[in-house]
């Protein structure tokens, strides 16, 4: 059975699971207050970045630091819980399909969900930017290509984080603990970003990418270019290692 068929099966499993709301709520929560307080971009803007760019960067900061990793963690745990709550996984393991294949297909579902949130975050950004423009009589709307490119990079950088959380949710079977550990791992990401080995901490990646975007507008704040070395190889190794561990451990409890 190929991965695509398995992906279709896995997507079918999350029907009516309310995951969509988990993707939408953070995006709305992030952008609605931003629209209300958009005027702070005129006053609290130390580096004199154009208010519309400041609005975009500040809004996505909350997303990149907390909301994206938190959403990924919640999705990972929920995807696992859908299998466990009524022994669905036990049934699937007794079917002619490889556990590793199922595990990878589920991770693909996570990627699909990440992509959906990317679209939702862009959509809600535009809605809030239009609203802010109406309220304050100043256009906060940025070009579509710029927004898409910047947001896509942030979400792309979140993929290694997704792999780490996917592994965590499989290794720690009690949902509240995997969730707690995942959420706790988000908190020190800003601290870690200030260390020399920030690239070893995947939870930093989305925030780092956003900060380089900020750096392009205010070079005194942060790097202006993404340091692909050594981030890229380390991210790749971490992603593959986490997925390999996840595949090996997937369904082990049910098979013991």
């Amino acid at each position, binding site marked *: 059975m190929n991965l695509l068929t398995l992906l279709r099966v896995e997507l079918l499993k999350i029907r009516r699971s309310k995951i969509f709301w*988990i993707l939408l*709520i953070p995006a709305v*929560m992030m952008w609605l*207050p931003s629209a209300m307080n958009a005027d702070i971009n005129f006053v609290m803007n130390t580096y004199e970045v154009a208010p519309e760019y400041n609005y975009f960067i500040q809004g996505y900061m*909350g997303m990149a630091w*907390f*909301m994206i990793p*938190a959403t990924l963690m*919640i999705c990972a745990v*929920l995807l696992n819980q859908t299998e466990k709550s009524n022994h669905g996984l036990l049934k699937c393991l007794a079917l002619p399909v490889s556990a590793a294949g199922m595990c990878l297909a589920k991770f693909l579902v996570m990627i699909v969900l990440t992509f959906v949130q990317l679209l939702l975050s862009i959509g809600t950004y535009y809605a809030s930017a239009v609203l802010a423009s109406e309220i304050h009589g100043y256009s906060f709307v940025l070009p579509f290509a710029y927004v898409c490119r910047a947001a896509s990079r942030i979400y792309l950088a979140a993929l290694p984080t997704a792999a780490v959380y996917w592994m965590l949710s499989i290794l720690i079977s*009690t949902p*509240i*603990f995997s*969730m*707690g550990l995942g*959420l*706790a791992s988000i*908190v*020190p990401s*800003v*601290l870690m970003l*200030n*260390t*020399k080995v920030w690239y070893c901490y995947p939870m930093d990646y989305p925030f780092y990418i956003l900060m380089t975007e900020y750096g392009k507008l205010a070079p005194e704040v942060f790097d202006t270019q993404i340091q692909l070395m050594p981030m890229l190889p380390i991210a790749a190794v971490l992603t593959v290692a986490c997925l390999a561990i996840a595949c090996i451990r997937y369904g082990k409890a049910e098979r013991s």
Partner: protein
Amino acid sequence: MKILFVETRKIKRTGYIPAFLGGGLLAGLVPAVNMAVRAETFATQPGSPFSILMDANWQLMAQLNILLLVCGVCILYHTEYEENAIQKAETLPLTPFRLYLGKLGILLFSCLLPLCLEAVSLLLCCIHWFPGHPETGTLLLKGMGFELVMMLPAAAAMLVISSMCRNMWTCLGIGVILVFMSSMLPSGNQVLALFPFSAPYQMLHRCSDSQVLLLPAICAGEVLLFCMAEAAYHKIRRYFS
């Protein structure tokens, strides 16, 4: 007292104690790691070591503490709802409000665990990076006592939310959103700073003389308010069910 004993029994094998222990250790690591990687930045700063360490780390440590609190509360009420044990509890001569108070008592004691671990970590950092400051121990004790009081409104509020949500995920989701929103609130606003999920970010050495008594008093008032809300919720629920 009996309810506290009963509640202690209920948390057996739920992983509640290891969670608080692990959470405390994790938060305790924050100042150690921060000092280890940026020692020169902090060691040269003016002021007492306690204030320097708190200013540099407490934001993160407090956030970890609140997240731990949210998870802990979820575990406490999840044991009631998971296998419908709450139904049995409701058929016993025991009011749901006493159940709430018992859980609040448990939370009060369990918050001490991470705070003690964090105090030990801060003390060790002081001894290692800022030698020759004997007053730090007393400051730490006072500071951690203050933080315990600051955490109580969040504990009481989370317990009210948790007692209302049969589904642990709903409770956890609300908790995480509140933690996130509180971290986004502007720090200068005195009123917003006393929002239950913002209060744990307050630091004793940053308080004026009048605030040292006022803030704990307001927190105690908030706890009382949440207790009243819980009692009222059960009365209303009974009326409608």
